């Protein structure tokens, strides 16, 4: 009596071995396991790529030449107590009132626009509002975010909803690292991912 397992193995082994063909098949299997099948399993789409011939060159629009360009991400950094927040508020007031900024010709002043401030360090009621009033700010056009959030995918999406509603010309995040969540600030890759998302939002 011969078992089914023996019959099965005998049938499987009956094909003569073409060695060259076998190596080709083995290499093909190896490549398939490592490329296309992997791709099909994950259901991910390839990254979007574009030719430079299809990209339209655009002129940079400046909010404050040569410091702040519209649609860009800028960092302001210095030691504490030197007045970064004061300068940021002054910028907000100027843009909200349509006054123009130092060194900008009157013809290039932008019209009064909404501005947005996202502040984690200073109280909106006790610190920011008195400072803005002392600067005679147009508080109708200055918007603050009251809710804490992080600049991850969900946070950026919710921020974009606010940007779409108020269309601010200038957004101040003070300080940026209060909104980065639980990333390791010593790691370049973590910081770059935050910067990349924020830059794209701009």
């Amino acid at each position, binding site marked *: 009596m011969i*078992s089914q397992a023996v019959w099965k193995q005998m049938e499987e082994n009956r094909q003569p071995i073409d060695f060259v063909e076998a190596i080709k098949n083995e290499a093909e299997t190896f490549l398939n396991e490592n490329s296309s099948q992997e791709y099909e399993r994950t259901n991910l789409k390839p990254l979007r790529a574009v030719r430079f011939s299809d990209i339209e060159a655009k002129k940079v629009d400046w909010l404050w030449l040569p410091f702040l360009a519209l649609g860009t991400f800028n960092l302001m950094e210095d030691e504490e107590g030197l007045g970064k927040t004061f300068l940021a508020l002054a910028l907000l007031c100027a843009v909200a009132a349509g006054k123009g900024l130092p060194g900008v010709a009157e013809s290039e002043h932008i019209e009064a626009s909404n501005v947005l401030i996202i502040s984690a360090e200073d109280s909106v009621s006790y610190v920011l509002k008195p400072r803005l009033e002392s600067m005679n700010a147009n508080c109708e056009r200055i918007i603050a975010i009251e809710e804490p959030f992080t600049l991850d995918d969900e946070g950026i999406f919710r921020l974009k909803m606010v940007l779409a509603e108020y269309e601010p010309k200038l957004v101040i995040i003070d300080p940026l690292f209060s909104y980065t969540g639980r990333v390791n600030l010593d790691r370049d890759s973590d910081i770059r991912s935050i910067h990349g998302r924020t830059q794209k939002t701009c």
Partner: protein
Amino acid sequence: MAKNYSKNFNSFKPFDAVKRHEIYSSLLSLLENKRVQSVPSGKVLPFALHEKTKADLREQHGFSVSDIKIVEDSIFRDVENMRGYEIVIDAPLHLFKALENLNATDKLFDIRAVAVPDETLNALICGKLLKTFSADQLLTVPGFVLTSSFDEAGNRLESVRLDVDAHLGRRGFMMPVLRNGLITNLKVFRSQDDERPFILRSRNPNIGGQHK
């Protein structure tokens, strides 16, 4: 360093597969003992190619084990058409008898079923394999194990052996497991009616030898 085949089958590179196939193929060739025999006189030509000829082909002409097998097979095919000679292989006895009862002994050709070797044949076969492959190469293939013993003078002797129990040699036999036409493992049947055969594994935990 030994590759880990069991945990991630993707690390099974084509080159490793070919090397494994060559080692298993050589082992099976030695065990199946395929030879040409004269029909009237029973005179046996032990091998199509002499061991010395094979060594010369490898060393001087860069032939691999598989190349030599292709040459040998072509010689065997030529002999098949010659009158007065036939090709003989050593089939596992109990499998042969079972197939004989079914008038199906012709199925024994090409499936490369070989009897499990006893301890002496195991040592002889491994000695022959070590002339072609290094001990390190053999030990990266599932089914081979490094055994150690002591001689009368107390010297430690280490040798490579096929890791299969010799008592299975009475009724047991082995057959290759193929993937894409390459031999990836050896499957051991305890007898011709064994429904639960097992695959030879390595005792080294880093070499799984799991056939996917």
